[in-house]
């Protein structure tokens, strides 16, 4: 066991973890932050995506101990009331079917929109192709990202 400090959703958490324990399991089993989902465990499906310093990262494939000093945002910390433009768009387009992969989809979309506020279909396909959805919500993910871009643009205009 090693003791580490992780900055998650703006708060510092001190926890004891086995040195190799992936961030995913530190979140889920040590901190009870269960919004980040396990699915493949080998970093290819995107269900466990979190934001690390603003970039999407597969939490199943990196040790928690390597994340000290970094800004980690999980789905719980995006905005607790669901008011982030991507969360609003995801609800309004009714993207989820089973909903299991959607935390990872949403955070990947957040990172895309942060660097590309008006992505094309192709931009979306490239950015989102690391996130699997077994229910086939892909057409709605495309629509929701465009809607989120509109919401964000309106918010920028209003402020």
């Amino acid at each position, binding site marked *: 066991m090693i003791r580490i400090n992780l900055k998650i959703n703006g708060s510092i958490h001190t926890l004891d973890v086995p040195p190799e*324990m*992936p961030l995913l399991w530190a979140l889920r089993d040590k901190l009870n932050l269960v919004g980040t989902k396990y699915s493949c465990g080998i970093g290819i499906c995107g269900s466990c995506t979190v934001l690390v310093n603003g970039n999407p990262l597969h939490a199943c494939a990196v040790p928690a101990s390597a994340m000290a000093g970094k800004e980690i945002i999980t789905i719980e910390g995006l905005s607790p009331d*669901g008011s982030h433009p991507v969360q609003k768009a995801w609800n309004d387009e009714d993207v989820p079917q089973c*909903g299991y992969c959607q935390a990872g989809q949403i955070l990947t979309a957040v990172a895309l929109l942060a660097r590309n506020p008006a992505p094309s279909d192709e931009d979306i396909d490239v950015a989102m192709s690391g996130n699997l959805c077994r229910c086939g919500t892909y057409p709605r993910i495309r629509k929701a990202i465009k809607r989120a871009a509109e919401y964000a643009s309106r918010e920028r205009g209003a402020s």
Partner: protein
Amino acid sequence: MKTTEQKPGLSRRAFLKVVIMASGSLMIGVTKASTATIAKAAGEPWIPNLYVRIDRDGRITIVSKNPEAGQGVKTALPMVVAECLEVDWKTVHVEQAPLDDRYGRQVVGGSRGTPDGWDDLRIAGAGALYLLTAAAARKWSVPASQCIARNGSIVHRPSDRSARYETLLDIAAGLPVPDVSELKLKRRPGEFSLLGSFVPGVDNPKIVTGQPLFGCDIRIDGMLYAIYEKCPAYGGKVRSANIEEIAKLPGVTHAFVVEGTQDLTGLLPGVAIVAKSWWEADSARRRLRVTWRSGHTDSTIDYDTKAEGLSREAGATLRSDGHVETALESAKTVVTASYYYPFVSHANMEPQNCTALYHESGAMELWAPSQNPKAGRILIAETLGIPENSIRVNLTRIGGGFGRRLVNDFMVEAAWIAREIRGAVQLQWSREDDMRHDFYRPAAWHHFTAGINDRNSMIAFDHHFVTFGKDGRPASGAGIPSGHYPAGLVPHFRLRRSVIETNVPTGPWRSPGHSAYCWAYQSFFDEVALAAGRDPLAFRLDLLSKSYGKPPLDLTRTRATLELAASKAGWGRKLDDNRGLGMAFHFDHGGFVSHVAEVVADGSRVKVEKVYSAVDVGPVINLSGAKNQVEGCVIDALSTAQLEITFANGAAEQGNFDNYGLLRINQSPEVECHFLQSDNPPSGLGEPPIAPATPAITNAIFAATGTRIRKLPLIRSGIRI
């Protein structure tokens, strides 16, 4: 999962019951004679099949009794109550029911949630409204006929007085309950205001903020985490395992052998490792050394050889109409082709898991993402030898079902481990456990011969189906009903069946059977149309114009979907040489669906650009949920068309998404969905759109490339997507 015909009208006798609760809330329930009798006999408080509760503060609560696996039932069914109760959807709260026999059937499967709930939900809503209207009429001493409901209030039109529902509860509770036959139930799309509109899912706020909802999200104080290692060759027993060494590894609290049973759908033999975190349990597993005892060596190569041998034999005749052999001899043209599709996995994004809490009293409580929790409770009771009434099962949201979670092996494993450690445990399967211990959609071979007459119509159809099973009987999900089309659509028809013995577990996979064999039929129809020199649409409309005996499907409704999909796709329009349209129709689980797919090819690489879908499932309840199911089914069909599970030494060879690569967003088509909103009773949509999507796509691939897809996955026919 059986296909059931929906009968119009109220098929079962329902009763309304009204209770004023201590809190002053009014509960209006619907029950069936059978469940009311159960409750009475057991001396338990009465729980209706479903209910509406109106609180003093105007909050409306509707219980959702079925598990939610992404099919949208938790949103769509309460919408029906809200529609009939004339309330603002925003004031409605939906509560997930636990497993309780008094609710009746609590299963996700067979697209039955909507048709089963339709009557009861309308009765609950209309019954509540009837009482509230009568209460307002009594309050004002006016005839009820002068009162109407508007957005949560009863309005007396002549005087313009109005009263919110929550102010009428006490009076309503004292009124005689109407007989169900007195209620006027809406049924036509034209009568609806909420139904048919686009309503986001009730769990969306929790999903987009990552709140606990799913089975694997359950956390209990002191809970431990478990993995369960089973023999890769199904049903193998543990000969020996290094459990003493495993028990000493970091974080591990328990390691033990489970003898298990020989039931492939129950508690298989294995080794349980329990630890303080799942990762520690799974890390310990990497050091686990088990010697298995198993005699099973099934392999895909062996299956291929057996199938080839069986295809030369006659097989068992399941149905014979007319004189198929004579008709083929005298036919103008005879077409022969063979089709093969592989085993496929359900690949739920949420790997199987279950949380179980063992109480010292011997009672158990479980949190299970199960599509059929009652069957899970029975399995646990029988396997652990404990009374069923000592087991409480809570239903969690399900991260993808598709039929996999109709089998409850993961529930009984969790229960066994919890009792062994005398505490709380969450069993979480790894992705590899999930893919290697699935109940696969079985592979099959279809050998077809069709005869065409001098008017270019198909008049004879001879079909030899080589499938999988045990003791000569098809395994779960491996059969074809003998009345399936084109039986009944041609005068001369024969269906023969041969069975390959297998030890591989099979089971229902989204639209069981249909989602596999529809592809073979509808692809071959295109081949017959081509040989007859006919357009695939004209050929199909001709086939659907006449039946011999009882029609195998409603011809009028089927033709209407086919014509609508063709018209929306611009069937017959001029296309570039590397572009193609393909079509297919189908009927299953009460729904009629046709698709036209548009594909563009670059050599052997194809892109499915767009699919035009025409659907008749009666009135659409939630437009969003309905379209979601159509879009999802089309994408599932394309995804699955490029996948296969193969076996060697009795075990599955694929274990994760690296070699079982689900479709990604960049490969995903646009889906344009059109509904024919008839006033037939509604049927479910989780299944009907998938079956015809696969052949519509492969027929379009043929149109674009000239390559006829007779083997799946697509790569076996030389096509990549």
